[in-house]
């Protein structure tokens, strides 16, 4: 791989990784092109732009939305998304004026890779994982999202091979937008449940 961050003061962990890589290559269990391909896929092909397409489709197509909420795995599969890191099944939970959903994995860092890509660092760190189940409303307010007490908060702790994605509310003022324009509004954080999709400025 290229030397993106591996400067002269290469950290010891990077060298431990290279040592293990070299052994696995010698044993016929790895190659540098395998590493390059995995990095390429997760840097380019799999990320929140996939989930954003799913959300936009659900916003413009009520029949698709019905299928998405009934069987998330099959419905995202219609758009070509699925596979590794998706656990075994995707469940899509819908935000409404009365219910706000939030996704976490307190035991490790399970996350719906096929639709959101690899998780951000904060999702994997102890602060979020410890607090999301204990004080979700406070956590959301630290993300700048004030959820009124009248709104129920549902926290989905991904403890098995079921993965969760939030279907955010469609913002007002977007009635004239097409699917691609809508998808451009949808953020990763909105699909985790720590943000809303903002209205058009």
């Amino acid at each position, binding site marked *: 791989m290229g030397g993106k961050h591996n400067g002269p003061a290469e950290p010891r962990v990077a*060298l431990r990784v290279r040592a293990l890589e070299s052994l696995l290559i010698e044993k016929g269990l*790895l190659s540098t092109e395998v590493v390059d391909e995995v990095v390429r896929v997760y840097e380019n092909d799999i990320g929140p732009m996939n989930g954003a397409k799913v959300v936009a489709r659900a916003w413009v197509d009520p029949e698709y939305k019905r299928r998405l909420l009934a069987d998330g795995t099959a419905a995202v599969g219609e758009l070509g998304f699925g596979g590794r*890191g998706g656990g075994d099944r995707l469940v899509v939970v819908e935000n409404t004026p009365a219910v706000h959903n939030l996704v976490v994995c307190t035991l490790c860092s399970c996350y719906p890779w096929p639709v959101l890509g690899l998780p951000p660092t904060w999702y994997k760190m102890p602060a979020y994982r410890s607090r999301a189940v204990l004080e979700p*409303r406070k956590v959301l307010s630290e993300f700048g999202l004030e959820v009124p007490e009248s709104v129920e908060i549902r926290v989905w702790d991904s403890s098995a091979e079921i993965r969760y994605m939030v279907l955010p509310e469609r913002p007002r003022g977007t009635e004239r937008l097409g699917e691609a324009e809508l998808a451009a509004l949808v953020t990763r954080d909105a699909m985790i449940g720590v943000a809303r999709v903002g209205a058009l400025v």
Partner: protein
Amino acid sequence: MNGVHDLGGMQGFGPIEPEANEPVFHADWEGAVLAMNIAAMTQRLYNVDEFRHGVERMGAARYLATSYYEHWLASIETLLVEKGVVSRAELEARTAAFFADPDLPLPRRSDPALVARMREAIRKGAAASSEERPSARFRPGDRVVTRNMHPPGHTRLPRYARGRRGAIERVHGVFTVPDSHAHGRGRQPQPLYSVAFESRELWGAAAAPRERVYLDLWEPYLEPDGGSGDGRQA
């Protein structure tokens, strides 16, 4: 195990600190760790439950002091040595060689078949659900209480939800039980449920109203509520 990985409800970790415009990888070695893990599981050197338990076994102080991909590296090293894929001695010798000379090249090897297999593994994923259909003991709406259990090995029933009363939200189907699969005892598939818990049941009377936590829990973690059960904590 009651490890430090089981973070739900702990306090003292401070604020959440999102990074603006975070890159997918912060350094090349992170991508290499991800690729090694997918390659190892694709080639069935270990399974995902063994992998998670490998992270849990890395030691509490070390867990808190290291990053996500360092957790992964620790588990990969542990499992590859335990499975006999590499020996501890050769891993230590090779690591020492790279510490002594960071410019050592990686061996060159082309393996288009493995690249294709990896692409396929990423595209298709791995199944944890089972075709078997043992009849599910609970139905949506049933009241359950989680067992008060503290197994020394791997489990996916978090501490904060042990001995707690909840309601079955839905039946997901029949899935591999991690508690056995992480320890070489096979998949032993069991019904898996989404179970809803009121925040006040989990955190006491001071908990905020209108908050609920949903967990995905296997049937052996659950007892019917209302019986004498072993679940409820005093």
